[in-house]
């Protein structure tokens, strides 16, 4: 129905009869097929998962800061996972594992892409809904089921999976090797298979919607950078996630059906096992073939969101739109041939390591171009500090700080000494953790009016930003130096090594900074929930933005626009164009209405328009001469 509506939207015959369409509670809020409602479902589930994963991180941060102290409260809350008020070493590893898994997959993949691709793709390309609304609904419910199963592993006697979020076998394959590799690991694997199914259904939907359902006039080079980012992200996901499923299914076979894909020559606790002929390194190849594109699946939507927000709030076109798109494409392509940089020290052929090093460092070029273009966009802007803008700027700052340390880790020689130390923890928490979460928060602040019809409180947003921004730097910056001192990650306590014990005071500091940032999120949660119900009502286009979603009515309706879908005439970044009356010209305004601000450049593939423009220029002498 909606697909048809796009193709003949000149004809006024939409079947969106609101009188006949009665939503029940279940069809509107639960098994909804409306992309806007599904976006909200993804967002709220994502935020819930983020809060849970954040609490887990505070628990293990407390352990790292006070390794010798007991906290009776922990035993009350966690039972046998924290005997005597101290976390058990195995449970510490569970916390680390589940924190990583939830944050990477459930928050920054599903929560970020799921929310904003669903909300913005139809609204910004001018479609009535996703290509396949039913698949879209399934995508959310598979994700929800995956989340529930992942969390349910805390109810298992032996505890959740604890082999790290990368679940390298044989540790994850041998239930004897650690308690978390028992039922907890089984649940992890089931959850992940469902998650990938969800993400594939979403991805296919995003790709087909962008390719097939753009409104009249919306050619690829008129799409906002958000859409470009979501589109490329979805392609990455569709190509990479199936490989993870393959890896996971083989692991399930090894665990449950006695195969040895990943296992060979193993002696566990003195007992010789029958596995022969497999390779643990094979799993790492399969995992990182997804795993590395995955970090771009996480960061690219955030980059797209921040491009849009920075441009809107600097009241300036994004600098080098084409370069921004090409660098996104470059990053996407390169992301598939760099996975080996996670495996420099596995004993992989050194020559292969050298090749992966070259491809890895090349990725820094498009990333650098993006950074410089952000800076050039801010230069001579008229910057409006909305909370969304602040978070987008925070993203740029984290992207620089975290990206630069990638030059150390991508270098195979330097990686020898930095691999799996706190330097890595600092690197990826800045460049993909903090940066991506800031992109997500920026998106929430910016499109909150679109989602809920109300505005969030700006001052609480400012408080939230500064506390989180400063907090994140205080947490992750010192970790670089721990890494340079050879302090390994995933250590339960640093008490056994005199050389590491001297970092205890730094650990205490980091923990308190983490607690500060965690508490700052209360400001966000309060603001979010309060504003949904009692926030200030928004106007239709609160940020004076150019993109299509702000031409849709505040009140959500099926099919997004009453009557015809608007036609697009120009690119989305005509901010502060000289000669225009306002400092923004929405995409739906034809050039014929803005003669005084048109540039020759605007008519690159429109000869009739160019001729009309030249005539107009002849008739109206240039503005400077009038002055």
């Amino acid at each position, binding site marked *: 129905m909606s697909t048809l509506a796009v193709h003949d939207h000149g004809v006024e015959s939409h079947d969106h009869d609101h009188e006949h369409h009665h939503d029940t509670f279940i069809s509107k809020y639960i098994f909804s097929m409306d992309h806007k409602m599904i976006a909200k479902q993804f967002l709220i589930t994502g935020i819930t998962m983020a809060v849970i994963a954040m609490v887990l991180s505070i628990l293990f941060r407390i352990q790292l800061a006070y390794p010798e102290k007991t906290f*009776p409260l922990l035993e009350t809350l966690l039972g046998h996972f924290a005997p005597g008020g101290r976390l058990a070493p195995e449970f510490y590893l569970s916390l680390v594992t589940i924190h990583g898994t939830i944050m990477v997959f459930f928050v920054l993949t599903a929560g970020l892409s799921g929310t904003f691709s669903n909300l913005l793709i139809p609204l910004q390309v001018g479609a009535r809904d996703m290509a396949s609304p039913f698949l879209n609904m399934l995508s959310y419910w598979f994700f929800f089921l995956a989340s529930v199963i992942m969390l349910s592993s805390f109810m298992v006697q032996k505890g959740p999976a604890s082999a790290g979020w990368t679940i390298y076998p044989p540790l994850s394959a041998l239930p004897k090797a650690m308690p978390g590799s028992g039922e907890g690991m089984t649940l992890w694997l089931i959850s992940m298979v469902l998650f990938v199914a969800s993400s594939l259904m979403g991805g296919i939907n995003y790709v087909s919607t962008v390719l097939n359902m753009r409104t009249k006039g919306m050619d690829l080079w008129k799409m906002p950078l958000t859409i470009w980012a979501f589109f490329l992200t979805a392609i990455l996901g569709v190509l990479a996630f199936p490989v993870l499923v393959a890896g996971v299914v083989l692991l399930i076979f090894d665990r449950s059906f006695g195969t040895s894909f990943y296992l060979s020559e193993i002696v566990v606790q003195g007992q010789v096992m029958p596995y022969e002929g497999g390779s*643990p390194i094979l799993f790492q190849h399969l995992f990182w073939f997804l795993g590395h594109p995955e970090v771009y699946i996480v960061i690219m939507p955030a980059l797209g969101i921040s491009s849009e927000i920075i441009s809107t709030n600097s009241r300036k*076109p994004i600098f080098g739109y084409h370069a921004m798109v090409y660098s996104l494409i470059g990053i996407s392509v390169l992301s598939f041939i760099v996975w080996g940089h996670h495996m420099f*020290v596995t004993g992989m052929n050194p020559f292969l390591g*050298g090749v992966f090093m070259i491809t890895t460092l090349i990725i820094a*070029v498009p990333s650098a171009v993006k950074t410089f273009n952000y800076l050039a966009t801010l230069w001579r802007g008229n910057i409006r500090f909305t909370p969304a803008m602040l978070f987008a700027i925070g993203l740029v700052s984290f992207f620089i700080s975290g990206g630069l340390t990638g030059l150390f880790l991508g270098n195979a020689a330097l990686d*020898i000494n930095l691999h799996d130390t706190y330097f890595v923890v600092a690197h990826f928490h800045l460049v993909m953790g903090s940066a991506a979460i800031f992109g997500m928060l920026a998106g929430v602040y910016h499109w909150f009016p679109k989602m809920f019809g109300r505005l969030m409180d700006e001052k609480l947003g400012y408080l939230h930003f500064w506390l989180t921004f400063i907090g994140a*730097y205080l947490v992750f910056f010192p970790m670089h130096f721990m890494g340079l001192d050879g302090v390994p990650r995933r250590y339960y306590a640093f008490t056994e090594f005199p050389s590491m014990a001297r970092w205890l005071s730094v650990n205490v500091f980091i923990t308190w900074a983490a607690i500060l940032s965690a508490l700052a999120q209360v400001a966000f949660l309060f603001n979010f929930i309060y504003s949904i119900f009692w926030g200030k009502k928004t106007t239709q286009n609160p940020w004076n933005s150019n993109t299509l979603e702000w031409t849709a009515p505040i009140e959500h309706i099926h099919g997004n626009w009453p009557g015809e879908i608007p036609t697009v005439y120009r690119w989305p970044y005509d901010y502060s164009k000289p000669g225009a009356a306002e400092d923004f010209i929405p995409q739906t305004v034809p050039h014929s209405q803005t003669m005084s601000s048109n540039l020759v450049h605007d008519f690159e593939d429109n000869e009739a328009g160019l001729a009309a423009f030249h005539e107009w220029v002849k008739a109206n002498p240039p503005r400077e001469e009038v002055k």
Partner: protein
Amino acid sequence: MAFKNIFKFKTLSTAVAAMLLFATTTVMAEAPAAAAATADDASTTMWTGVGYYVLLFVLLATIVGIVGKILRVYDLTAQIQGKKAINWNNIMGVLCIVFLLAGLYGSYWEFTEQGTMSLPAAASIHGVDLDNMFSVTFIITVIVFFLTQICLFWFLFKYRGSDKRKAYFYPHNNTIEKIWTVIPAIVLTVLVITGFFTWKKITNTTEVKGDINIDVTGHQFAWELRYPGKDGKLGTKDYKLTTGTNKVGVDFKDKNSLDDQIADTLVVPVHKSIRLNIIAQDVIHSVYMPHFRVQINAVPGLPTYFKFTPTLTTNEMRAKVEDPKFEYLLYCNKICGGGHYNMQKVVRVVSQAEYDGWVAAQKPYFNDALKKELKMADAKQPKALGQNRLALNN
């Protein structure tokens, strides 16, 4: 109306403050009492402790709420009186500059204070190359870091929003874009080429001859060391032979294995090429010796090795870092289970003479218990052994 609001919040905050005071006194009063009390009392103290922090947070949140309300009231009254409302763009712009200055000082402080806490210069030959590579990368990234962050926050302050100004329409400039694509590309080419050759130099070690082979086997949660003995050759292994006494599964049919030795400490002579032959038995571990810039995974079923030449003895390093208790360490750097955080071996670099003395005193791997076990196995399964020999002859 506005004053009413303030009043309302004042009463609320007073109430909270009073509650807090009460809670504090309760906690304070109970704290000494609880020390001598039973477990029940301990749990009450725990909960009052929790309640204390919760109340503290509620108070903080209330203060934030009050400040927010005051700002709102100030804004509204200013609007009524026709004055300008608070200009948040200016405030945020200034905060950006404050953050920039604090951040610059903070990172300088971190570099000088914590930077000095990082590892001392490499104690191996290849480590020196690695350190040079590190310095090159460090200098480049630090320059870029400071330049871009300063630009970012300076622009935020300089171009903070104002109704009087209009932004400069500047959609693209191909020349500038080409420049800042090419410059990073050149810099990265330098990093890639130097990095590639450093990496090649470190990993391609076949020219160095006369290594001392040492066998390192990882298992949950310890390292087993095996020295080659007088013949300088390590005997072959077969994981199926692993038992309580034959911990790493040495195959004694190989004559080279008969003089192998076991050791508790990884003692190596200085200025000699050391080849660590590494494998794991159960899960993946990682041999990490940061002072020598050595790391390679220990993978079950996949033998790996790392060759390095130590250049500083333990005693020299002790003098250098001014710590008489300093020891080189080898520890696990790949998550391997509950005991991962304490899987270490002391590494001692000594002079050749000291090494010769030490190695002579090490126990043989093929000890009496093993001999006995092997004899018993022989007696038990003479047939099977015979078949094996036949297979070997073939």
